[in-house]
C-alpha cells in the first residue's frame, strides 16, 4: 500500500495532526460533478414519469417535457462518461481509487471492521476507529448501492434511450436490443429504472448524513478530504 505522508504538525491544543493524501484530484472532481449530475438526473427523472401540470396554448410555444428530457439525457451522458473515467482512474490511480470497485471480500479482518463500524453507528462502541481510506462499512455500502446501482441505472437508462434513438444507434445496438427482452418489455424497464432512482435517493440521504456526522463525530476529516484530498487525523 502506497501512502504518502505529507504533513506532520501541531494541531490546536498542542495535539499532533497527521495528514495523508488519499483522494487524488480526478477522484475529487469526479465526486462533485457526479453528485451534481445525479441530482439533476433524479429531479428530471422524477418529472419524466410524473410530469408537471399541463401547459396551455399552442404546442409550438412550449418545450417543457422536451427540456426536462434533454436535461436528463445531458446529465446522463455526464454521469455515464464520468463513471467510465472513474473506472479508468481505478486502474491508474492510487490504492484508494480502487476501493469503490473492489471489496476485500475474503478478508476476515475487514469484515470484522465492517461489524465494528456497524456497532459504532448503533452506539455500541464508544470510540470510532481511524481510516485512511473509506471506512469498511462505507466501502461496502458504496460498492452495493453506488457501484452496482450506477451500473444498473446506466444499463437500463441507455436501453431506454436507445428506444427513442431507434435501431442503428449505438445505444440501441449495445443495450436496447438485449435489455428490453431481458426484462420482458419496455414498461418493466421504466419501472425498474425508476425504482433504482429511489434506491439512489436513499443511498445519497444516508451517505450525506454519514459524511456530515462522521465529520463531526469521528477522529478524522471527511468533507474537507473530498475537497482537498487530504485526510487529517484529529488526535
Amino acid at each position, binding site marked *: 500500500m502506497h501512502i504518502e505522508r505529507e504533513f506532520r504538525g501541531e494541531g490546536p491544543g498542542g495535539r499532533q495532526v497527521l495528514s495523508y493524501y488519499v483522494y487524488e484530484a480526478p477522484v475529487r472532481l469526479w465526486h462533485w460533478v457526479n453528485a451534481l449530475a445525479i441530482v439533476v438526473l433524479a429531479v428530471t427523472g422524477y418529472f419524466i414519469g410524473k410530469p408537471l401540470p399541463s401547459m396551455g396554448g399552442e404546442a409550438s410555444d412550449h418545450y*417543457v417535457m422536451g427540456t*426536462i428530457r434533454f436535461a436528463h439525457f445531458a446529465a446522463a451522458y455526464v454521469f455515464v462518461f464520468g463513471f467510465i473515467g472513474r473506472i479508468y482512474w481505478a486502474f491508474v490511480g492510487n490504492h484508494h481509487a480502487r476501493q469503490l470497485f473492489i471489496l476485500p471480500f475474503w478478508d476476515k479482518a475487514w469484515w470484522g471492521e465492517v461489524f465494528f463500524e456497524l456497532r459504532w453507528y448503533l*452506539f455500541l462502541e464508544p470510540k470510532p476507529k481511524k481510516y485512511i481510506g473509506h471506512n469498511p462499512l462505507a466501502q461496502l455500502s458504496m460498492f452495493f448501492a453506488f457501484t452496482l446501482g450506477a451500473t444498473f441505472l446506466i444499463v437500463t437508462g441507455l436501453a431506454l434511450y436507445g428506444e*427513442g434513438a431507434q435501431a442503428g444507434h449505438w445505444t440501441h445496438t449495445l443495450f436496447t436490443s438485449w435489455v428490453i427482452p431481458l426484462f420482458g418489455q419496455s414498461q418493466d424497464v421504466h419501472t425498474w429504472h425508476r425504482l433504482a432512482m*429511489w434506491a439512489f435517493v*436513499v443511498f445519497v*440521504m444516508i451517505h450525506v448524513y454519514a459524511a456530515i456526522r462522521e465529520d463531526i463525530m469521528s477522529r478524522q476529516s471527511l468533507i474537507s478530504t473530498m475537497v482537498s484530498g487530504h485526510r487529517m487525523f484529529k488526535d
Partner: protein
Amino acid sequence: MTETFYDVLRRQGISRRSFMKFCSLTATSLGLAPAFAPKIAHALENKPRTPVIWLHGLECTCCSESFIRSAHPLAKDVVLSMLSLDYDDTLMAAAGHQAEAILDEIKKKYKGNYILAVEGNPPLNEDGMFCFQGGKPFVEKLKYMAADCKAIIAWGSCASWGCVQAAKPNPTRATPVHKVITDKPVIKVPGCPPIAEVMTGVVTYMLTFERLPELDRQGRPKMFYGQRIHDKCYRRPHFDAGQFVEGWDDEAARRGYCLYKMGCKGPTTYNACSTTRWNGGVSFPIQSGHGCIGCSEDGFWDKGSFYDRITDIKQFGIESNADKVGMAVAGGVGAAIAAHAAVTALSRAKVKQGNASQEQKQGE
C-alpha cells in the same frame, strides 16, 4: 401442373386488374420500391402456391375478425383466397372428419412447405384438456401440424405472449407458441388483435418472397414492430411541449393534448397503429381520445391499471408502484436518520458532560 397463386385468384373471380393493384399495394405497404410490384406479380403468377393452415387454440377470434376486415378489400380477397382453401376451422366450408382430413393431406403432400398460422395458444395444465378439438387436446394438434411445417406465424398476443388467458394466475397454463414449438421459426405478430394490414403484409411477404421477414430479437417483423406508437404519434408535439390531458372531460382532452398522464402506453409499445391506423386508416385509439393500452406488449394485462403512467409492481403488493415503494423507503430512512442524529447529539452531549466533569475533577 401445380397450381400457382394466380390460378387460384383467377378461379376465385379476381380480375387481372385487381390483382395488379394488389401487387403494387403490397409493395408499398412492405416499404419496397415501385419496381417490386411486377416482381411480386411475377412471383404470384409462377410460384406454386404455398398452403397456409390456420389453427385456433385458446382465443377469442379477434385476430380473424381483424384479418377479414383488412382495410383494402382487395388485400383481404387475395390473401383469403390463398388461405381459406386449405384449413381454417372458422372460415372454411368443410366440417367434421372431412375438415380434419385436410390437415393430414396437407401435412403429407406439402411436407416441410406449408405455413402454420396459429391464433390463440395451447393450455398445458391437465394435459391440455382446457382446449379440445376433434377429440384431441389442441396442444397435440399443434405439435402434430408443426412437425412438418416450414414456419409458424403466431397471430396476436395470445400466440405470441399468452395474453388474457395467460394473465396471472393463468389457471389453464396457457402458453405462447414459441415455448411449445421450439424447433421451427416462429414469427410473432402481436396485438389484441394485430392490425389487419400488418397481418396481410406478413403473409404476403412470406408467400411472395418465400422467406421470413426480418425479425427483431423477440421474433417480431421489424418492418411493423420496429418503432413505438409514441415515436410516430400525431400528439407527440403536445408531449414535448408538456401539454397533457389530466381528466377525461377537461379542456386539454377537448384540445387533443397528449394522453401520457392518463396512462398512455404509447411510449412503451411497439406496433404500427400510429402509422397504418385501423379500419382503413380511419383512426386508432389515441386519435379517438383514449390512451394506448399496450396490447401488443408481453403481459400487458399484468402491468397494473391502463390509466396509470407509473404502473404497479405486484411483488410489493397489489396497489404498489415505484413511487409508493420509493417514497415509503425514503421516508422511513429519513425518519431513521433524524432519530439517529438525535441519539448522536444526546450521547455526544453526555460524553462532553463526562469530559467536562473529568476536566473539572482534574482541575480541582
